[in-house]
């Protein structure tokens, strides 16, 4: 357990801020009704479910699809599902997926062109088939969505595909009750309490007294859905329990990032010897960028068919860890793993602030957990600052060409 430098933000206090409705209590039956109501309203309800040894996000058709009684044990380069002592539905941290998969999909058709007698005709990409309802969105993930909103919708040019998917999305957030071993949202000021950007927010209360959810609405759409559910007024005991849930998560953060002066520190140290050290361990495999809920880079390519009658333009996830990413006339600008890791980390934690007026990191810990060799962004940050993290095994890289 480690101390955190962010200000505490108890759920109950955050709950009273803004135009929220008074909290209500619902039972598991009402949660089932919530999923059914959203599905009946035409939403594809996406939520957590257990698949291939992990809690991933996919379409859920009922409470039975949720990861009841499961939690995740996470460390650098390691993720394991474990059974909980209780039947909590949201008793885990975050898994390999993020909502980015749905709002900013890995591959997206931009347009299609067909050869005609007169020349060619362009067809725009079809609008989204269904609206998404996201169930179980964490505070760090809401911040990540807000960051991608700024990237895709905030500038002079908007990403119309993202805008359409985002516009229609209904968000059911969840206050975290369990922090993962690689979590550090408390350091980044992005959690664990949900503060904004949701239609409904749940706090799961599971104990000897029963299994309930404290629910608050954060939008008119949320209030309307909440009104349709069987609920009862929140008791003082339930409010106190909800506050304790978030405090438990805050106290359980497995990692900590010292953010004071971090931007200036990274921007002043492009030649720090630590970049060589991390380059010897880094695989340049791009996993960190793929799992990051804020990494937004894409590549755009055109393809033609064999007959030369049809062309498509497609956008796909791309990563600053590939050579093609920085390829311009003459070669890749960032040819080494050192240059690529430095680019990613300094962009995420420093240049991002210049570009978008916010850090690009929300402290979800995915890049740490899902790095196949367990490179830890908090540890790299501490090392640049000159603190050696205690207790980490030295990498046993016998040879290599960083």
């Amino acid at each position: 357990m480690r101390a955190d430098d962010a200000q505490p933000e108890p759920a109950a206090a955050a709950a009273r801020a803004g135009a929220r409705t008074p909290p209500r209590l619902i039972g598991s039956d009402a949660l089932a009704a919530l999923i059914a109501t959203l599905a009946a309203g035409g939403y594809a309800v996406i939520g957590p479910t257990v698949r291939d040894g992990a809690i991933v996000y996919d379409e859920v058709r009922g409470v039975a699809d949720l990861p009841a009684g499961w939690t995740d044990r996470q460390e650098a380069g390691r993720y394991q599902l474990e059974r909980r002592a209780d039947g909590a539905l949201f008793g885990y941290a975050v898994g390999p997926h993020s909502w980015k998969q749905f709002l900013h999909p890995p591959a997206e058709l931009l347009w299609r062109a067909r050869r005609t007698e007169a020349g060619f005709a362009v067809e725009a990409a079809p609008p989204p088939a269904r609206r998404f309802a996201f169930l179980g969105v964490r505070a760090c993930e809401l911040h990540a969505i807000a960051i991608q909103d700024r990237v895709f919708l905030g500038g002079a040019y908007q990403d119309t595909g993202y805008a359409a998917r985002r516009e229609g999305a209904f968000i059911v957030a969840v206050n975290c009750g369990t922090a993962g071993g690689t979590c550090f949202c408390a350091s980044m000021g992005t959690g664990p309490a949900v503060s904004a950007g949701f239609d409904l927010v749940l706090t799961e209360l599971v104990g000897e007294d029963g299994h309930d959810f404290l629910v608050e609405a954060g939008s008119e759409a949320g209030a309307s859905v909440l009104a349709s559910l069987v609920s009862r007024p929140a008791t003082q005991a339930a409010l106190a329990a909800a506050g304790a849930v978030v405090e438990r998560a805050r106290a359980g953060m497995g990692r900590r990032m010292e953010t004071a002066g971090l931007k200036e520190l990274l921007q002043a140290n492009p030649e720090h010897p630590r970049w060589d050290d991390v380059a010897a361990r880094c695989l340049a495999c791009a996993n960190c960028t793929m799992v990051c809920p804020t990494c937004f880079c894409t590549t755009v390519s055109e393809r033609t068919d064999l007959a030369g009658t049809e062309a498509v333009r497609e956008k796909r996830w791309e990563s600053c860890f590939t050579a093609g990413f920085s390829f311009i006339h003459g070669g890749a600008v960032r040819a080494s793993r050192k240059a690529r890791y430095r680019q990613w980390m300094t962009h995420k934690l420093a240049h991002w602030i210049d570009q978008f007026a916010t850090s690009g990191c929300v402290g979800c810990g995915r890049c740490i957990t899902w790095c196949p060799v367990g490179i830890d962004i908090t540890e790299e940050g501490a090392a640049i600052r000159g603190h050696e993290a205690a207790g980490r095994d030295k990498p046993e890289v016998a040879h290599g060409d960083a």
Partner: protein
Amino acid sequence: MAEPKRPSLAVWKFASCDGCQLSLLDCEDELLALAGAVDIAYFAEASSTLRPGPYDVSLVEGSITTEADAQRIHQVRASSRTLIAIGACAIAGGIQALRNFADVGDYISAVYASPKYISTLATSTPIAAHVKVDLELRGCPINKDELLEVISALLAGRKPGIAEESVCVACKRRGTTCVMVARGTPCLGPVTHAGCGAICPAYGRGCYGCYGPAEQANTAALSAQWRRLGADRRSIHLAFRTFNAAAEPFRRESDAHGHEDHPA
């Protein structure tokens, strides 16, 4: 308006299993469109009608393992406007490049009843070690969709949109949970070139490295992690000694984990 002349295509086999050229016949749904777009002039696997060159495009499968083939590849090059090496044999020497790490004479006497009839080189070498290659399409075997993309790109005069990243990127794009992180399964994906569509991890297996080393493959750091997951030196040695054993980053890494049964 006269029909534009279709580019002629030739398919050549050197030391190989035929799996890559069969990817062309495996196109099935696209085969008619392909035959309509190119003039298949020389493809012994598909037709006994073999027309003389020159050819606009040659697809070359297989590695160079005999003196005769070392001569023949120059004729293929001379008769081809564009030469595309397809598959691990043509690009890295293939599984038969294991001979490069041993005495080929020992193999011959172990395998053949009459070794005297066998005339072969001591090594299996890629096409690019002999002639200029315009494009290398990775895989063991190649992915038919990538092959069609290369041919479509050539026909349109554009750059082929084929994979250049690691297998990890393909896994993440398809939403596969990392088998190395979540199951502790040793996987070559982080150091392997994409193109297969990340098939094995989607079925819970580690990547076998069929598409050869990725650009910037940090095999040493990956091996160190395999050791932490419990893999012994022999299994690391063998993992890098498969279809792309002679590709330099894989050769170097297997050598670094040499075993008495498989001397470095």
